[in-house]
């Protein structure tokens, strides 16, 4: 009698799938490194983005050189000392600070020149000099802008004290969604994308490459398991693991760091799930193409982790990048996830924004899965 090949039988298929998933889960639980990457790294990342890495310039140390002792110069100097953006060190000669500027001990030097009061009195435009450390352009910009702000405020107050009332145009700024301008509010969602990339792409590509290296793949292939079952059996556990890591991040962000969560969980999980499709697909494809852990890790690093970090709009504005690089970001899945995640946290559910993002990510995932499945035909190369 011929035993019917049961690979088409539905319960058989489910049981095989379940067995593969359970096996993978046991392996995840037993290898400390997968736990580290899925649960310890999220802690570290959310923590670092919550506390450590901040794009908000708090207090920058500057040198202040007042070359004359007139009341108006002293008054302006006092404004600088009172500013909450500056940590002022006083000096009498700019040369005192030049070395400190080279060594990065101060980020700028503000010079109130000896002609200051005379210029003011003569109703000539008076000039304040600001020398900044251009080696760090971002800080340099902040120092310039804040110095301008201090001077403008001082001038306005002075003008209001004089007879003529100030007239001009007032700018009223309103920062929607994040009035405190806390950078962690938008960095934490980015960290979540990084964590999911690591679990989805790096970890997945490593574990499959390991099966090839250790010869367990051949044993699996000689069983009635189909290629599709093999792939799904790999994807499912890491899908759940990645969502778990994501949930952990969100929990930490909201409860520990007080990041607001204004959208719905449905949107959060829908977006994350959509993002994991290309992330996992990429992991599968890499491991199918390399079958070697070293190469897989390098590829995952280069095509997954770094783009998610640098080309996703997480830290750096995509609009400000040169044209060709903007085009390149179109194929980085994280680019679609991060703005939507920031929205879920800070703005709420804006489905008109989410749906296209989900569609693009799902489409990418589909293409990658097809490619991976083609590379994982049940044959030994």
């Amino acid at each position, binding site marked *: 009698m011929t035993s019917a090949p049961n690979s088409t039988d539905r319960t058989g298929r489910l049981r095989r799938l379940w067995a593969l998933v359970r096996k993978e889960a046991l392996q995840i639980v037993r*290898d400390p490194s997968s736990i580290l990457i899925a649960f310890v*790294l999220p802690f570290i*990342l959310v923590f670092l*983005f919550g506390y450590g*890495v901040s*794009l*908000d*310039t708090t207090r920058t*140390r500057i040198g202040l050189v007042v070359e004359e002792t007139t009341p108006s110069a002293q008054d302006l100097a006092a404004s600088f000392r009172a500013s909450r953006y500056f940590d002022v060190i006083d000096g009498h000669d700019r040369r005192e600070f030049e070395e400190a500027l*080279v060594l990065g001990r101060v980020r700028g030097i503000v010079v109130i020149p000896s002609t200051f009061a005379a210029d003011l009195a003569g109703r000539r*435009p*008076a*000039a304040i*000099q*600001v020398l*900044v*450390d251009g*080696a*760090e*352009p*971002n800080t*340099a910009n902040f120092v*310039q*802008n804040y*110095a*301008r702000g201090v*001077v403008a405020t001082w*001038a306005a107050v002075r003008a209001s004290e004089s007879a*003529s*009332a*100030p*007239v001009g*145009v*007032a*700018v*009223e*700024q*309103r*920062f*929607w969604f*994040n009035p405190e*301008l806390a950078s962690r*509010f*938008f960095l934490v969602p980015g960290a979540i994308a990084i964590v999911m990339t690591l679990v989805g792409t*790096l970890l997945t590509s490593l574990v499959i490459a*390991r099966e090839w290296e250790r010869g367990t793949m051949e044993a699996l292939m000689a069983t009635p398991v189909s290629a599709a079952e093999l792939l799904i059996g790999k994807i499912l556990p890491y899908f759940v693991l990645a969502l778990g890591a994501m949930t952990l991040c969100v929990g930490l962000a909201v409860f520990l760091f007080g990041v607001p969560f204004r959208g719905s969980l449905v949107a959060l999980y829908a977006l994350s799930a959509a993002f994991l499709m290309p992330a996992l697909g990429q992991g599968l494809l890499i491991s199918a193409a390399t079958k070697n*852990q070293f190469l897989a890790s390098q*590829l995952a690093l*280069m095509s997954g982790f770094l783009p998610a970090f*640098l*080309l996703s709009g997480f830290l*750096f*504005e995509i609009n400000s990048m*040169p044209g060709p690089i903007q085009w390149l970001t179109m194929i980085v899945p994280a680019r679609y996830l991060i703005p939507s995640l*920031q*929205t879920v946290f*800070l*703005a709420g559910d804006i489905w*008109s*924004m989410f749906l296209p993002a989900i569609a693009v990510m799902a489409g990418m995932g589909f293409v990658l899965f097809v490619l991976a499945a083609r590379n994982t035909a049940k044959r030994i190369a």
Partner: protein
Amino acid sequence: MWWTRLKALIVKELLALLRDPKARLILVGPPLVQLLVFSYAATLDVTNIDLVVLDRDAGAASRELVQRLEGAPDFRSVVPVAGEAALAAAIDRQEAIAAISIGPTFSRDIAAGVPAKVQVILDGRRSNASQIVAGYISRIVQGLGAEIAVSGGRAPPPVDVVARNWFNPNLIYQWFMVPNLVASIALLIGLIVTALSIARERELGTFDQLMVSPLRTHEILIGKVIPPMLVGSVHLTLYVLAAVLVFGIPLRGSLGLLYGSALFYLLSVAGLGLFISALAATQQQAILGAFLLLVPATLLSGFATPIENMPEWLQPVTIVNPLRYFLIIVRGVFLKDLPVAEIAAQTLPLALIAAATLTAAAWLFRRRLE
């Protein structure tokens, strides 16, 4: 005798790294592509800004304002919208990072010499970029206001702020980013290559073969450390060339000092890698372990954000991070001609880190024989 042994080991390690064409490609190609792509991509400048304007005034002054915004180089598009709802939608969907709302009395107020007001709405989800945009807009609006005031003869002359940027007069972001990438890509590759070196031999069974040879523990460690350092030096050289020739970044300091300190940097990176390798039982653990170190090391280095912006209690953590010191050195040598004493002061911690990690790796290594 010892030199013969060591040389054999070093040659072997280099071959193991470079003989496979795939591995060779991965070691040389992507780091260069990364340098090119990321140094253009990684910019905190804000340009190509998209703006929407709700102009309920449509008077002379508001038209003047819109024209000035359109004329500003950093703004890509200034799109008029019809009402509050359209404005909100544009911000919500991130079609624009900022919206300017001009009230119906704007031109009238200005003409009457009454304080006029412009409302700017910014997308706080990208708070860093939107702050910078806010700065741009304020300057344009205030410039307009000041001109009107001066022409009306009502205000005292402004106090000029003359800013001069040392080291990087035009604040070109790549001048900052390329040196950063030089240091951090060297960390990325050096760490993973060394972390894998012992773990891989252990998994493939060649490690015992090494241990029964007359190579002594310290020779094995030296033999494992030098090849990644050589690879790192080659990367460094390529990057320095690219920085000068492709990006036109001035190299103001001494190349000799840069290489001298790079030696200690690469040594400390290799030390960290070996330490991970000695701890890990499998390649997977080595790779993921390297990662677990890599991410915080990059974030807590001053790469993207200055260390002095971090909370005070966190700053001490960065003193064990080799990247922190080398970033200062690379940036300093390129742009500032950093004095020798300062370079030495930044190199000393690197030497200490290298000594500590290599000692720890050797200890772990020997303990494995128990």
